[in-house]
């Protein structure tokens, strides 16, 4: 399955305004939980995991974050996309002592890692593609975000 097939229009938030990471996670969780994508424990588990194993990724000129948690809290697999009005601090995946300001969030709701390889490779292609990230940050509607993501293909 490709990245696009995991994108749900009702889990795309454009120019979201949040004050911090907790608020971001809570906002995305409520959307996902109300629509039956995740179990109730998901929010707590997501926060715990982010605290121990952070998911901020710095590409040099920009940063993204891919918060996610264990598969048992996912009911229906999804990728939630959020662009932020003002950035939120995330710790770096490889070094918890460092932070990066993130305004592009891909929250991953995965339950079968190997069958989802293609989609994961497309995510990596996407986050390494500066022009695509710029396009996403400029998008004004969930439909625009979907159109951009439709065109992503893994280069691996």
């Amino acid at each position: 399955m490709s990245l696009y097939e995991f994108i749900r229009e009702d889990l795309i938030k454009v120019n979201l305004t949040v004050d911090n990471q907790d608020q971001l996670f809570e906002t995305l969780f409520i959307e996902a939980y109300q629509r039956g994508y995740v179990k109730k424990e998901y929010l707590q588990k997501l926060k715990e995991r982010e605290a121990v194993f952070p998911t901020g990724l710095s590409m040099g000129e920009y940063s993204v974050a891919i918060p996610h948690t264990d598969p048992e809290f996912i009911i229906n697999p999804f990728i939630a996309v959020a662009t932020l009005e003002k950035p939120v601090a995330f710790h770096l995946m490889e070094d918890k002592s460092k932070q990066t300001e993130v305004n592009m969030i891909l929250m991953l709701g995965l339950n079968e890692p190997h069958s989802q390889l293609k989609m994961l490779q497309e995510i990596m292609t996407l986050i390494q593609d500066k022009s695509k990230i710029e396009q996403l940050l400029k998008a004004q509607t969930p439909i625009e975000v979907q159109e951009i993501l439709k065109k992503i293909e893994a280069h691996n």
Partner: protein
Amino acid sequence: MKKVLVACGAGIATSTIVCNRVENLLKENGIEAEVIQCKISEVATRQDDADLIVSTTILPTQYKIPAIIATAYITGINMEALDQKIIDHLK
């Protein structure tokens, strides 16, 4: 045969990418090794018969075997240097 543990926090997202990358890397370089995907929390108990840890996430503890941070495969920055580092450890 050598054994490589590929780990990330949840054992589901970034380690899937890195697992695939490492498997291909070893194949291309004619290195026979078993590549196992796991959570970083499982590494401590699985390291005894393994030769190398490749992790996308921070290492919560010290291990008896060498450990390499492989976030480069996710960000795409300095991937070739990381390839070489892994090959050097398994030769």
